[in-house]
């Protein structure tokens, strides 16, 4: 018994890989389509090809999160739709676009991929017993930083590079959004409308998947409904409808510091919303200011940062839906926590300085920055809004999880986090000495919080970065964790299992002192 092969090493090589080559092949095809689209000449640069690439990627991701062993019965229709949608992209490539209008091709192929994804999710998670199904995650290349994941990251990042720096290459794709754009906002589509449409669609489709996947958990269900609506209504329909009414494209779910221009002094950026004709512009500026400086502290005091980060925010909406399969990829080492704190608070300091500089500059009528005034604002918006949040935030989903931006770069998360850490009723309560140290919570924390470190000490989790997605409580096989908003007293309960010789001795004091709800 003692002279056996080191089992630790045997296990480190991973469990047997089942036939999961399909996602890898699909992701590879996506890369190929992307390359064809990028470097292809007419007619190979047809937008359907790009949609097909993105669809391939989505279907690779959907196929990849198959819980091992689950029968795929009833999912044939789903698969057919997904592949049918992709085939349409191919047909478009082969000249179908000459016969059928672009927008029909695109609507049908996108629609087929979306419908197929939903049908697959329903077959996978919507039938049979409900419960947490993370089986096979680490046997799947797409989900464990295998070849497919790297390809997916390249394709996604490539898409963002095109979107930000070479939007003209997406012209065909943008034009096909015209019918939708004219319907909603009465104007031709631009690259951001195209992006917003795809983004909201991803949140909707993968949100429906999440609803099936977590159907046993009412917290997850309500939260998922919230993110679908927040993205679809607050961050998509309302801003576009405002455009239709000749009002500023205003997002009620963003404010300073994520949308610094909402507070910008009048002479920077694209004019000041305040100066917009009519009363709506003034309402928007007041709304933004009230949200940023009054609502944020109050709501965060009562509910923690989750009211925003995992219920409302657009980045959170995508992370909680399209990013759901990648939660376990967040690094939970102490080192990444250190990097995270320096970066996110560094960003907050920069943003605050930037804002102050611009206001002072404005008060001095440009005397501080001179001709650089407008450039400063644009660089600021571009670096933080676009490059960070998009390219790295979403492009790295398959490699570092869906919350890279939220952990390391978001100034709004930094503010909410500071309030949550020091001035909030929110905490994740640990249920006495029930933790069995298994590590599901830490593994599936998308923010890379080592939840188990606290839970196994019997300590409540009060961390600035926690977005309150509730997944630790969902995956815990012993029901050890509970998200709570309760009185601040007893919030930092100390490591019970460490400092006290006996958890129940502590329990006496606790039960006697706590005032229930």
């Amino acid at each position, binding site marked *: 018994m003692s002279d056996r092969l080191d*089992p630790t090493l045997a296990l480190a090589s991973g469990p047997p890989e089942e036939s999961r080559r399909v996602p890898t092949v699909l992701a590879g095809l996506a890369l190929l389509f992307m390359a064809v689209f990028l470097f292809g000449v007419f007619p190979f640069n047809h937008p359907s090809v790009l949609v097909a690439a993105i669809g391939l990627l989505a279907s690779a991701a959907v196929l990849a999160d198959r819980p091992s*062993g689950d029968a795929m019965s009833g999912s044939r229709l789903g698969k057919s739709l997904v592949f049918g949608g992709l085939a349409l992209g191919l047909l478009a490539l082969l000249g179908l676009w000459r016969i059928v209008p672009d927008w029909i091709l695109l609507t049908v192929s996108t629609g087929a991929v979306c419908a197929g994804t939903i049908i697959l999710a329903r077959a996978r998670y919507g039938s049979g017993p409900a419960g*947490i199904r993370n089986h096979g995650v680490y046997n799947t290349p797409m989900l464990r930083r295998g070849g497919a994941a790297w390809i997916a990251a390249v394709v996604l990042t490539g898409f963002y590079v095109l979107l930000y720096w070479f939007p003209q290459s997406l012209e065909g794709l943008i034009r096909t959004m015209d019918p939708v754009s004219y319907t909603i906002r009465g104007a031709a589509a631009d690259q951001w409308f195209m992006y917003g449409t795809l983004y909201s669609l991803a949140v909707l489709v993968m949100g429906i998947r999440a609803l099936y996947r977590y159907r046993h958990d009412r*917290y997850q269900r309500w939260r998922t409904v919230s993110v679908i609506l927040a993205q679809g209504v607050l961050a998509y329909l309302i801003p576009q409808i405002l455009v239709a009414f000749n009002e500023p494209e205003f997002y009620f779910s963003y404010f300073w510091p994520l949308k610094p221009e909402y507070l910008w002094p009048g002479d920077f950026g694209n004019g000041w919303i305040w100066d917009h004709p009519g009363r709506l512009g003034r309402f928007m500026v007041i709304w933004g200011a009230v949200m940023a400086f009054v609502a944020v502290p109050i709501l965060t005091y009562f509910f923690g940062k989750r009211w925003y980060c995992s219920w409302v925010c657009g980045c959170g909406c995508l992370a909680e839906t399209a990013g759901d399969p990648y939660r376990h990829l967040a690094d939970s080492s102490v080192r990444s926590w250190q990097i995270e704190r320096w970066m996110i608070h560094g960003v907050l300091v920069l943003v605050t300085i930037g804002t102050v500089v611009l206001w002072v500059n404005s008060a001095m009528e440009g005397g501080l920055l001179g001709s650089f005034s407008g450039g400063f604002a644009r660089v600021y918006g571009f670096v933080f809004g676009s490059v960070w949040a998009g390219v790295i935030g979403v492009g790295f989903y398959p490699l570092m999880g869906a919350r890279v931006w939220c952990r390391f770069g978001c100034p709004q998360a930094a503010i909410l986090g500071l309030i949550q850490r020091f001035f909030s009723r929110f905490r994740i309560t640990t249920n006495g000495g*029930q933790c069995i140290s298994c590590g599901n919570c830490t*593994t599936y924390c998308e923010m890379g919080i080592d939840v188990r*470190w606290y839970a196994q000490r019997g300590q409540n989790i009060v961390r600035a970065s926690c977005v309150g997605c509730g997944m630790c409580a969902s995956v815990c096989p012993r029901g050890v964790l*509970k998200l709570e908003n309760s009185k601040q007293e007893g919030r930092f309960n100390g490591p019970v299992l460490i400092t006290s010789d006996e958890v*129940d001795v502590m329990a006496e004091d606790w039960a006697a002192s706590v005032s229930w709800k």
Partner: protein
Amino acid sequence: MHVVIVGNGITGVTAARFVRKHSDHRITIISGESDFHYARTALMYIYMGDMRYEDTKPYADDFWTRNRINLVRGYASRVDADSREVHLASGEVVRYDRLLLATGSRPNRFGWQGEHALGVQGLYGLEDLAEMENATRDIDSAVVVGGGLVGVEMAEMLSSGGIPVTFLVREEHYMDYLLSTQESELVEAAIRAHGVRLELEAELDLVETDSAGRASGVLLKDGRRMPAQFIGLAVGVRPNTDLASTSGLDTGRGILIDSAFMTSAEGVFAAGDCAEFRSPVAGRKAVEQLWYTGRSHGRQVAAGLLGAPADYAPPLFFNSAKFFDLEYQTYGVVEPVPADGQADRVFSDGARLIRIVYREGDGAVVGVNALGVRLRQNVWSHWIRTGESLDAVLRDFDRSLFDPEFSTRLEVAV
């Protein structure tokens, strides 16, 4: 002062942490199983692909150096209590001043014919896991024997991999030595919902093997035959006493210890799964083999390792499990059928269940079982310890709920 601990499971590691917390003693942990402490409770998640081995380590690898806990990889083969030395299989000798044996346990085998065939095994440690991964590759069907917690875990592991599983339980109902019939039936439904073929009152007679010495099926005592290329044995565990007995320590079922965890040899303690109390605390077993009791032992044996042996004072009994998707918690003393002078109240909506056991005279609660409902340990410990009355408990029941926000509440009518 050099404290040496044999075994890096939850007992050994907890003891080491408490010794470090309260002293500057040199601490060495010897383990033959793994370089670092990992959560045995998570073995099933490695198999199912929910986690990697490295995710099951509760402490980062540098935790041990930072806390000056020396880790030695090797099997202890003999203890020389007179010269205070541990001899490793490699020939290495480790001197100690105080020694803790936390050698754990291993799966039971009851002398069935064919029980050592290829593909027949229990599940306790990493070696078992690696073996199971190999043995269950490309098989058509599997059998799990034994109606306890590990049996359900093995059934879940196998069925998650798409392997048809037959689960043989000797008792009339699953775990009927702990659960009421109604509770057992809920658990049985949860198991069957996952397509596991649960056979109650089914006892293994022998394991059939093929010409290559591989398991090919089982024969039950009632004469039924079932083909299976993997047979999981989950019929309890027994203490690892080899090291203690070859070293001349007193052993019975386990390594015999007094109420302060001291073995028959001076300066040598034993705790956790491997230990057997000569005179157990009232209401507790002589051999306690739960993960939670292992942690509790580890915390309390640390006093002895620090030079101030203290009698074992177990916390209020509690345990938890998950039967596929159905969570289970128990606090206090809950018998399948209330003992004389006790009664129980059951609240169930068909999918979840709460059973509160109380004294008939004064109505004081003595224990609770929960299936599909999460309860606060602190609140229930307090209620049971102080003998809160059933009426008061039912009135305040919501205070003890630990279910996630927005959960529907199980009605407990007063």
